[in-house]
């Protein structure tokens, strides 16, 4: 009997030798995840014949554009910074803080950034790890590494529990499954914003058929302003649309002109509703505007610090960010 026991134990030891050949990681490998998702969505893709043309701005860069990849922006000129602005020959960032009464005895702080760039390649995104990975980093760290004149958190794409979303970063397709209940922001080759309500798949296909290149795409929302029209926010939209929450939104004012609004309350869970946020951006002149991840995810980084009441201690690490870069540095 002892012999049998020893044999069984030896067999168990032998079987365990298969593990080095079978188990690469406890985590799902990024590349495998990407390919498997692609494979599945490919099967589900339906075709569309609708065409939809959106005018886009043509930019005449005075300086060499940045490559459309994950490389950083050019170094910033320290002399270009003031407490609330940055300027060089390729970019202008102007910051402003306003207080707004959002109801009875309810004051919120608006952190407003207006950005003018000279080339579409200056509106960029960065990810903490490989584009599809769940790696996270502080937006402030990513901003520093990428020479961001202004950086903001995006939609924390790796944190989406559903993963049914349409996501591009710097021309790299990460996910391509439109989410029927969420709005989509696409930034094209001219750095123009295009909003797709409920991520309408046919409209997206028509957009691509019209010859546009998708550089960045974010599934989150809701869309706040579309083609100059203030939208009414669906009461069933995600993330507490009617709650007074800290919010972050990005909008386009004109070709190569953008606006970022971060709303923070006097307490960490205070802010505005999504409809109020839409109104704020509308009043500031946005023609397209899109709500990004709010709450403690909302982060606005300027000149190595935060343009909001935040510290490194409570900054939430995230998978990706949007930033504006300079073309001027060497």
């Amino acid at each position, binding site marked *: 009997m002892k012999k049998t026991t020893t044999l069984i*134990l030896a067999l168990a030891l032998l079987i365990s030798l298969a593990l080095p050949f079978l*188990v*690469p*990681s406890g985590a*799902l*490998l990024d590349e495998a995840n990407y390919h498997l998702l692609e494979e599945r969505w490919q099967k589900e893709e339906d075709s569309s014949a609708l065409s939809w043309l959106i005018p886009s701005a043509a930019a005449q860069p005075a300086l060499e554009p940045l490559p459309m990849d994950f490389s950083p922006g050019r170094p910033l000129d320290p002399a270009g910074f003031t407490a609330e602005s940055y300027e060089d020959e390729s970019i202008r960032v102007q910051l402003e803080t306003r207080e707004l009464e959002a109801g009875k005895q309810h004051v919120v702080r608006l952190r407003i950034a207006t950005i003018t760039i000279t080339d579409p390649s200056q509106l960029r995104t960065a990810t903490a790890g490989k584009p599809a*990975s769940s790696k996270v980093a502080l937006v402030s760290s990513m901003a520093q590494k990428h020479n961001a004149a202004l950086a903001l958190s995006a939609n924390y794409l790796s944190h989406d529990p559903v993963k049914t979303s349409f996501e591009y970063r710097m021309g790299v397709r990460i996910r391509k499954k439109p989410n029927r209940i969420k709005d989509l922001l696409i930034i094209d080759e001219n750095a123009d914003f295009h909003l797709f309500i409920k991520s309408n798949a046919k409209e997206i296909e028509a957009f691509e058929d019209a010859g546009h290149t998708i550089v960045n795409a974010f599934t989150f929302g809701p869309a706040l302003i579309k083609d100059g029209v203030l939208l009414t926010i669906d009461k069933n939209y995600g993330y507490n649309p009617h709650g007074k929450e800290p919010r972050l939104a990005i909008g386009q004012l004109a070709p190569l002109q953008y606006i970022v609004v971060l709303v923070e309350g006097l307490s960490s869970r205070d802010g505005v509703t999504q409809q109020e946020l839409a109104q704020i951006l509308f009043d500031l002149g946005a023609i397209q505007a899109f709500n990004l991840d709010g709450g403690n995810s909302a982060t606005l980084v300027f000149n190595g610090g935060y343009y909001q009441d935040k510290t490194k201690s409570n900054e939430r*690490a995230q998978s990706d960010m949007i930033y504006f870069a300079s073309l001027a540095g060497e």
Partner: protein
Amino acid sequence: MYEDAVILPVPGARIYAYGLMLALGCWLAIILLWRLSSRHERLSRAAAFTSLLALPMGFALARAMYCLLDSAFQPILTLRNLLNVHTGGFAMYGALLGAALAALIGARLAGANKMRMLDLLSPALAAFLVPARLGEGFTTLGISRPLTTSWLTDSFLASRDAYDSYLRTYLLEAATALILAVFLIRMLRRNVKEGLVFSSFCLLYGVTQTLMESLRYDGHLRYSFVGVQQVLYAALFALTIIYLAVRLLKTPGAGKALPVLSIVMTAAILPAIVGIEFLIDRSELGKLFSYGLYLLALAIPGALGILMLKKGDRIWTKS
């Protein structure tokens, strides 16, 4: 830029460093289990069956649990993808559960005492975890949020990438598993009542791993902001406390104060843990302070559980 999984440079073969560490863990666990059970023939046979069954069962449950519970895998969940293990994706909780089930089956096949078999398995599982956790260093797992405490960022506990420094939580987890293995072996040698070593493992591993899972921020098995394994580990220690408390309450003369207090405190601690998680994410308080608070909160059910185990050992061994 980031290695998903380190492959050893062996010509003609793909040998994963993480898999190799898992194999090492299995060897360590099997040898320890064999040594611990060698004095009793039935237990020795049960240990052999357990070793043989634990590998496929642990492997299958680790994979199944990951595929069913991970939000990244759910959209691609098909039988073919589930079986394609080369993509990675395993849950340690499932592996441990598979091994425990294998011990129960092994004991039944050999006609051995099931609880004693689980007792013997406990230090073996802890020993398995030491290299298994160290192996996470060869993957993208086992790292924390970006560190903001300067003295930690310069220590050997931190790893640095292009952006930030991260705590190597896998080192802490390996060290904790080693301490747990030693503690459980010593407990076994004291010949405590059957089942108590396994209960100690469930209690102490559940408590410590709840904290470790909070420290981990590697996106593994998370559903939005909720770590699935953290919930399971919290449930593990909470259920162990309830089990011990109910057993004591049913034992005449064991007294009611300690088990009732344990249940009440555990019920109070669980929401407190959720609160501390929010504090860690949102508060400007230093992470070190928040985790100190976390440790204190978890020490309460841990200590109460140990007191119940001691009391239970005294009373149940007599009876």
